[in-house]
């Protein structure tokens, strides 16, 4: 959230959020050229002059990645609730309604099945335009269900992150989504299904510090801000200027944190290529690979989507009885 404000101030024209202008012409934040809006959109929201990657709407992202006609939406079965009765200058419920009206989705995520150059995947794309892409219970649950359903349907998992972090209006429950999404990824690991995570501008806080950096491969788009603590928080802490390019994708690539930085026009084929190779391991070694993480192969670890969760003691008893 802090980030969202920071961006509004520093990068007024970037992205598809509230503050983005809706005129025919846009000024590119990268090269300051005047770009015709349609040209930008036709070029995958990449500046035709300098290659600056504007934020991309969720539906355009899906259209760019999924083979034509292959996308089938999964998300939408769960809606956010105001568990804490959170009110700041405005009630959380009203903020939710406004975001839902604006984006026409229940929360900050869209998931579904698709193929990428024929490779079956589950896609999870975050919407920074919905309360800054913050992760509350619904985002966590949709990520978890998508990962688990991908595992059930023998699909690789591809997530496209864009988030200001945890949704503080859901208190500690939003913090717990970091652990929830992480344990849900085990369903993929157990079946040796690849998970490729794409970090886009911006990916921060609790999303960076959970599922989004736990991909078998983690790549980013050029120029994307990727961090745990936002630049403003760090500046306030250390009281000095930040290095040039700090926390941007290229910086993190040099620091060893990313597998690669991939320009948007190449993204689909690179992701498909990764999935293809990671699924082309030797059959003779696959069996024992599963044995190796017998930890993860425990059948009692399987989670039933939507089934009422038992409490800890019950789970322990049940698991023990298995």
């Amino acid at each position, binding site marked *: 959230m802090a980030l969202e*404000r920071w961006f509004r101030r520093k990068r007024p024209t970037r992205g598809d959020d509230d503050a983005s202008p809706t005129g025919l012409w846009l000024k590119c934040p990268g090269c300051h050229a005047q770009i015709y809006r349609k040209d930008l959109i036709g070029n995958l929201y990449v500046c035709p002059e300098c290659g600056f990657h504007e934020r991309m709407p969720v539906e355009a992202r899906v259209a760019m990645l999924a083979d034509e006609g292959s996308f089938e939406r999964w998300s*939408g*079965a*769960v*809606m*956010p*609730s105001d568990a804490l009765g*959170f009110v*700041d*200058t405005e009630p959380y419920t009203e903020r939710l309604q406004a975001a839902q009206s604006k984006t026409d989705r*229940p929360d900050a995520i869209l998931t579904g099945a698709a193929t990428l150059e024929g490779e079956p995947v589950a896609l999870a794309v975050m919407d920074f335009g919905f309360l800054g892409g913050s992760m509350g*219970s619904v985002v*966590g*649950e949709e990520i*978890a269900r998508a990962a688990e359903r991908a595992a059930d349907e023998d699909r690789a998992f591809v997530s496209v992150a864009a988030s200001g972090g*945890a949704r*503080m209006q*859901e*208190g*500690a429950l939003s*913090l*717990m*989504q*970091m*652990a*929830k999404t*992480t*344990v*849900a*990824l*085990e369903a993929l690991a157990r079946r040796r299904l690849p998970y490729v995570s794409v970090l886009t501008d911006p990916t921060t806080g*609790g999303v*960076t*510090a*959970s599922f*989004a*950096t*736990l991909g078998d491969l983690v790549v980013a788009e050029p120029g994307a801000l990727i*961090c*745990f*603590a936002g630049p403003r*928080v*760090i500046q306030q802490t*250390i009281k000095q200027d*930040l*290095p040039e390019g*700090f926390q941007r994708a290229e910086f993190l690539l040099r*620091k060893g*944190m990313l597998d690669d930085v991939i320009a948007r026009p190449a993204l689909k084929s690179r992701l498909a290529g990764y999935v293809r190779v990671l699924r082309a391991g030797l059959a003779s070694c696959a069996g024992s690979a599963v044995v190796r993480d017998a*930890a993860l192969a*425990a059948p009692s*670890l399987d*989670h039933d989507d939507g089934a009422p969760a*038992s409490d*800890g003691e019950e*789970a322990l008893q*049940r*698991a*023990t009885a*298995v």
Partner: protein
Amino acid sequence: MPLPFEKPIDDLEARIRDMRAYADEQDVDLSGEIAALEQRLASLTRETFAKLDRWQRVQVARAAGRPTALDYLARVVEDFSELHGDRALGDDPALVGGLARLGDHGLVVLAQQKGRDTKENIHRNFGMAHPSGYRKALRLFDLADKFGLPVLSLIDTPGAYPGITAEEQGQAWVIAASIQRMSRLRVPAVSVVIGEGGSGGALALAVANRVLILEHAIYSVISPESCAAIRWRDAAEAPRAAEALKLTADDLLEQGVVDSVIPEPVGGAHKDPDGAVEAVRVAVSEAFAALRDHSSESLMAQRHERFRRMGRVLEAA
């Protein structure tokens, strides 16, 4: 230095001290008066702490003199022996790890350590770990699994450190890795939030089978001050933010985020550190005793389910 709402308690304590001194000095018997005042002190303390609001509890959770992780380790476990280093970046004093014994079995211990004074606070970076701290934890999780040693973690941090080096070294990456690694532990894991459970930096070490919390400890997605600065654009609104965040032990129990609350001595752990340490010792021993005969598979499954079900969503019609 008492907390603001402790002033009446502090005053009464001073009066009792004075009266004792006077009685000694003058060799008069004031035991009746003193007993009465002590009774008043006890009920005043009880009443004060029974109706603390959330912001006051935040202050208790951070109170000077509240026992730190190492204070607990000294008596909750036996023969604690510190192990240093992450084999990559350094050794983080904000996140202490090591071996210990609990009854007849070995233990791996991880503890977020704030300072007990300014000098130690600087050394410990106020309990805010760098990536090397979490990497040390990853290493010790591996050690625990290899040798079947249960894991105890003590949580007390404002959060993972936000700084240039921390970001360069992948603070987000190591926190995610620590959450994942701890969720995969093949041994029993018990976490106790003893003071401040600050955001992802706390959760990274709290993916346990049993998450306990001290009565006046807090556990939150964000500090009240930062929440206020963002949502009210004014850090001075921290008390309102604390209310909104529902970050007390009771709140967390209600939310299903913690499994049980360990009562503190009346007046808070800082009033009676020994009492608090003993309460934690008993709670930790019981928690491990309840877990120790379960198989690795059941422990992993229970931990997995515990965190998989977190959150509140409405199923769409």
